């Protein structure tokens, strides 16, 4: 590792085309060592593609961008990167026709580990899977597959974890346990880049990046991302919210109207226009309108909507 590298990932201006499709545009990301970095965005926005470029599974378009991963050049030193990165794929990608132990053992061999037996036994013990070590991994439930995958990519003691939607389809209890483990690992100095769809998970990350249609739209801590969007949000409570939301959407200055149970969140970027619209629709005294803090979810919904508009224009 290069001396004094403070970033686990530092890439700038990466692009990726699949045929004519520009899947990732000018992608830049800085993940500090020991940080848990959340990577958010709708389906098909290029999260998996970006992660694959970082760990050398995809080559970025030639002549565009560069960067380092753990101090190694992402374009040229992919072999070194592979040795020190643990990558958990979006889909379960261990061998379903191998047992749990055989899978771990195989992975350990691929990384040329010295004390393979001890490492595999240790991983099984931490997983609590010693008694089922000889079961085929294809027979495991989603939550167990996820834990096994995590154990497999931690086996060679990587310095950076790349987790691609690790908690998709996993129950809330298992998700909570999973995040506890991630935080424990980060506390030990491991850097983590994790892509997710869940807001609560986004809030558990030290920092975030939001990507849509291949473009990075916002980065920073959760608070920074929220404040950077300069979004104004009002909560409305009262009767007949459904017709009200239809009426509001038609007015200028109203960005997103999102129902949250018995309240309606109305967001917009121009506060005076937004207030005028609200005043026009909620003159009835039955409605209560109050300004609230924008949440991460409000911001993401607004970002996603904006990005869709950009996409249509092109």
């Amino acid at each position, binding site marked *: 590792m290069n001396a004094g590298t403070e970033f686990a990932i530092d890439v700038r201006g990466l692009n990726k085309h699949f045929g004519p499709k520009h899947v990732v545009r000018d992608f830049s990301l800085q993940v500090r060592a020991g940080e848990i970095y959340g990577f958010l965005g709708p389906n098909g926005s290029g999260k998996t593609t970006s992660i*694959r470029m970082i*760990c*050398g*599974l*995809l*080559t970025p378009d030639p002549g565009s961008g560069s960067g380092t991963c753990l101090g190694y050049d992402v374009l040229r030193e*992919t*072999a070194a990167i*592979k*040795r020190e*990165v643990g*990558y958990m*794929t979006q*889909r*379960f*990608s*261990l*061998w*379903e*026709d*191998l047992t749990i132990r*055989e899978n771990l*053992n*195989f*992975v350990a*061999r*691929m*990384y*040329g580990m010295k004390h393979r037996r001890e490492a595999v036994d240790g991983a099984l013990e931490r997983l609590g899977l010693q008694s089922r070590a000889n079961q*085929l991994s294809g027979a495991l439930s989603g939550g167990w597959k996820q834990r096994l995958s995590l154990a497999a990519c931690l086996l060679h003691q990587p310095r950076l974890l790349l987790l691609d939607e690790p908690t998709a389809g996993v129950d809330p209890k298992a998700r909570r346990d999973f995040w506890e483990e991630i935080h424990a690992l980060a506390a030990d100095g491991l850097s983590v880049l994790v892509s997710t769809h869940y807001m609560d998970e986004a809030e558990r990350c030290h920092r975030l990046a939001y990507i849509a249609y291949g473009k990075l739209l916002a980065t920073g801590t959760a608070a920074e991302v929220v404040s950077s969007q300069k979004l104004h949000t009002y909560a409305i409570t009262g009767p007949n919210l459904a017709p009200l939301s239809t009426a509001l959407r038609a007015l200028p200055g109203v960005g997103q109207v999102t129902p949250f149970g018995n309240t309606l969140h109305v967001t917009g970027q121009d506060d005076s226009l937004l207030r005028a619209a609200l005043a026009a629709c909620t003159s009835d005294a039955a409605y209560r309108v109050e300004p609230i803090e924008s949440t991460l979810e409000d911001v993401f919904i607004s970002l996603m909507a904006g990005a869709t508009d950009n996409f249509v224009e092109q």
Partner: protein
Amino acid sequence: MNGFSLSRWFGIIGKEFIQLKRDRLTFGMIIGVPVMQLLLFGFAINADPKNLPAAVLSADNSPYARTFIRAMENSGYFRGVVQVAREDEAEELIAHGAVQFVVNIPENFSRLLVRGEQPQILVEADATDPSATNNAIGALQVLAATALARDLAGTLGAAPPSPAPIDLRVHRRYNPEGISAYNIVPGLLGTILTMTMILMTGLAVTRERERGTFENLLATPALPIEVLTGKIVPYIMIGLIQVGLIFLASQFVFNVPMKGNPAVLFFVVLIFIAANLTLGITFSSIARNQLQAMQMTFFFFLPSILLSGFMFPYRGMPEWAQWLASILPLTHFLVLVRGIMLKGNELPELWPQIWPILAFMLVVILLGLRFYKRTLD
């Protein structure tokens, strides 16, 4: 630090073995296919077919001709001998495969016979399946010598005419070379190996790609050469099992002679297996999915079967086809195996057929390494 790692290599071999062991269907096919093909082809070849349909085009209605026809039927080799009156009728029967033989008895048959002038009987045989006709033709030869002995004894007195009273001419149609069972069992060895080796390995990498496990393999430091060759080794052993089965059957069931050195045969077989496996692995790294790998296998397998000399005699093909066939390992392998088993050839005589297989292998592995994708692009 980036060199070939034996430990990783053994890891890949071990994994492949475990997966093979668990994939019952594939494993069953690997053993079952040669056994089934041997039973089907081998016994079809080795059987002594009787009751073959025949037609007689007789221009002579003498008792001698009738005796000859009855003797044909009594031999057991011919069934329902039909009499036809015109040549085009006979031609149509044999062309459509309604009969396997047409026996032409000439006009002056009995007159020449009585005079001891050896009348000619022309037998046209449909030799597309030579093994089916050879024994029957043999039986005809015997008949020519003996069938009329009793009838003639009355006419010509005690002395049986020598040479044979009839000059039997056989005209093998459609397949003049008349490939024998000895040719086909060694040929089966080559075709079965070509088929299973290429197909099994062709599926090896594409299967990983389709199941998504390839991404995991790529994310590890494993080198392409380790993955490719590590996947080949288990199938070499499987190929050897197949060869063992076929060889044993050729010796003890079909009695094919083994004139040459078994060690030389083993060596040649090993080279041939390796050549097919490299091709399979290369297909596997070019194809995007298992279906494509399968299509490539058949695309290669068909010319191998048709042009190599397994189905049709090599020397009967036009020059361009011979040239094409000389690229295929099976063409050389057939010559090698027949040479070793039937003629007892040794390595120096075999070398001209060995190096083309080696050259084929070299080109193919270079292509494979070139196309093996280190990334998911």
